[in-house]
């Protein structure tokens, strides 16, 4: 056990709504969110701007009052409590350190405000700063630190009180690309070491994949999917999630199911090869559906099997290449390592990794192969 001492809380959101009135228009920012964040878990709320993720976080923090529904912390209904009474720490995108105070003074500030004894304060401040690797900066002023170090000072200041839970709103988005990448890894390590219950808001799917124990994908005020990163990546609930996660997102092709075959132009896929889903598929009607497959699960065929396509564009991205291809009526993207040589105009045959094929309802956009699975959005 480290200095943290295992303080944490579970957070339960029950049918949470937020309705605004703006210029005479009614805006439903959050529409009935149910979510249970476990003790010590790191949950990421992920979605595009306007999905309601920040509003949800602000309601948990007590900065925004829900229109309906309740927030429970450790089983206690805190909906009517102020932000201060909830004993939760937050860190925002802009870290707002006190510029006239040293790093040390910034970190000790919340403890001084609580009226703790000097000895306890200095011990605690050193512990937290050592932990985040910023003790060497203690006598510097924030403006003399790079942006990643400044954000770490903000994090130290937020957790020095040992709050029950930790809320972060896009904490990395003001950092430049390189600093963002290593600060992200450090945040992940920090959470592993102190295990404080954390809710983290971002629009960056890579951040969500990296940090989350579970990802909550949101769109227009509603939860689309809750799941472990790998699960959300491999088995998205619907087209929105499939496209939003991944860069580039999943490919979608209109196919026709005809008996045992999915037909995509001159490519015929035997559904019996989708072993895991055989039972669902055998009960499925014939007709049009949307086949989804991620760019890395498409390979070049070295036989006459597969789908005949023409290479349209090649984007060399260093580590890998993203290759755009054209079928007769549709187009898609595949991903190869940098050493594979393809150029625009090449005619090739491609194959899908059958196990990785996903099928979606063309009307509702929902994943047809997930029908048998229990929805993880639990309401207690």
């Amino acid at each position, binding site marked *: 056990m480290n200095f943290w001492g295992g303080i944490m809380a579970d957070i339960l959101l029950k049918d949470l709504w937020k309705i605004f009135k703006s210029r005479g228009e009614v805006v439903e920012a959050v529409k009935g969110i149910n979510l249970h964040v476990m003790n010590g878990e790191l949950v990421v709320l992920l979605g*595009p*701007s306007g999905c309601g993720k920040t509003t949800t976080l602000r309601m948990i923090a007590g900065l925004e009052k829900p229109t309906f529904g309740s927030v429970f912390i450790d089983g206690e209904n805190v909906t009517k409590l102020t932000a201060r009474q909830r004993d939760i720490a937050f860190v925002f995108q802009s870290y707002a350190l006190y510029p006239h105070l040293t790093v040390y003074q910034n970190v000790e500030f919340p403890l001084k405000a609580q009226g703790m004894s000097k000895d306890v304060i200095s011990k605690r401040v050193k512990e937290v700063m050592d932990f985040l690797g910023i003790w060497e900066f203690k006598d510097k002023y924030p403006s003399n630190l790079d942006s990643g170090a400044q954000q770490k000072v903000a994090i130290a200041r937020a957790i020095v009180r040992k709050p029950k839970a930790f809320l972060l709103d896009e904490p990395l988005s003001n950092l*430049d*690309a*390189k600093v963002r*990448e*290593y600060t*992200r*890894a*450090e945040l*992940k*390590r920090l959470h*592993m070491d102190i295990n404080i219950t954390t809710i983290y808001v971002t*629009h*960056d*799917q*890579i951040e969500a*994949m*990296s940090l989350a124990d579970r990802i909550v994908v949101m769109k227009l005020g509603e939860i689309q999917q809750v799941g472990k*990163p*790998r699960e959300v*990546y491999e088995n998205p609930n619907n087209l929105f999630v499939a*496209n*939003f*996660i*991944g*860069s*580039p*997102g999943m490919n979608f092709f209109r196919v026709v199911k005809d008996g045992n075959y999915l037909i995509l132009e001159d490519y015929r896929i035997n559904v019996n090869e989708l072993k895991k889903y055989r039972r669902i598929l055998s009960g499925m009607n014939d007709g049009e559906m949307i086949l989804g497959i*991620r760019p*890395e699960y498409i390979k070049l065929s070295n036989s006459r099997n597969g789908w005949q396509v023409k290479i*349209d*564009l090649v*984007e*060399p*991205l*260093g*580590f890998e290449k*993203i290759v*755009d291809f054209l079928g007769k009526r549709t187009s898609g993207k595949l*991903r190869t*390592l*940098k050493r594979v040589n393809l150029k*625009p105009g090449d005619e090739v045959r491609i194959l899908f990794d059958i196990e990785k094929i996903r099928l979606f309802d063309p009307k509702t956009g929902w994943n047809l192969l997930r029908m048998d699975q229990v929805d993880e959005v639990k309401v207690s």
Partner: protein
Amino acid sequence: MSSIRFENVTKKFKYVTAVDGISFEIKHGEFVVMLGPTGAGKTTTLKLTAGIYKPDSGTIYFDDEPVNDLHPALRDVAFVFQNYILYPNMSVYDNLAFPLRSKIRKVNKDDVDKIVREIARLLHIDHLLSRGTDRLSGGEQQRVALGRALVRKPRVFLMDEPLSNLDAKLREEMRTELKRIHNELNETFFFVTHDYTEAFSMADRIIVLNHGKIEQIGTPDEIYEKPASLFVASFVSSPPLNVFEVEKRGEEFLITSLDERIRIGYPNISSLPPKFTVAIRPEDLRFSSNKNGDEIFEFPMEIYVIEDLGTFSVITLKYKNLILRQKSLGMPNIMVGDKVWISADGPIFLFDPHDGRRLL
């Protein structure tokens, strides 16, 4: 369309030299991206090309004709900015037609219509022509702004980070779109960005700029495979490049910060200076729980952070004060705290520790 040539061009402001004696050429119909961090002098270079700034020294040529003294309005360039401005009370059609209706151009009405529709089709906004620009999404607005530059058929297109205000998904879509548009039009594109993925995905050639000076000019493959300097190599790496200092001691090489040996398999070791910088790309690093004999270090490293990012994974490795990152497709079967041995499968770059130029 035109070619552009810079010859020893310098632009100074009161306290800084923004552009410091740069020379490069952009050929007819080429898509060239200038890549560099904030403050490198990229936007200044574009503004010099447009004639918004005048060089303090050096010469800028369009098609071998010096244009230093040519008024911006007469250079016939189109400039697309990060913050595009559309006329809010006009339809998409009128926004696109506006540059053609200017009095100097004298394009007749039928031709205006033809050009507007052709460009709208190219940008996939032909179904939006009658819509007001305030009712467009961010991506649609950026397309209209691009369209307004395209209708004019200028000699060159200058683009200053036009995608950076779009969200990630849209940016991805638009960079493919821009490359496709360029393939179709074959006009001269001069594009500026700080995002190396954007540069790599679109450029025929990339000019890497840093502190007003050119670090390297080359195709995306050349920039990636044969970086001219440590700056270039680190700028185009995600996650950050693995970099550490090494010094010679007798016949051995030691990692300066650790005083531990490193094995570098370069044949011509005697030609190396006493101190140099080693860089290994994250995807060229390998680790294994057993010693195979091809390790580059004599110590194992600890798995510090594991990030499964979907398509690939990033593993952070730690030994004392040395932190390295490894990137691979798929997910290795390891746990935080495991001890692993490190080898390299790919180029190990060596750089001069003083000026950062590549030695090997």
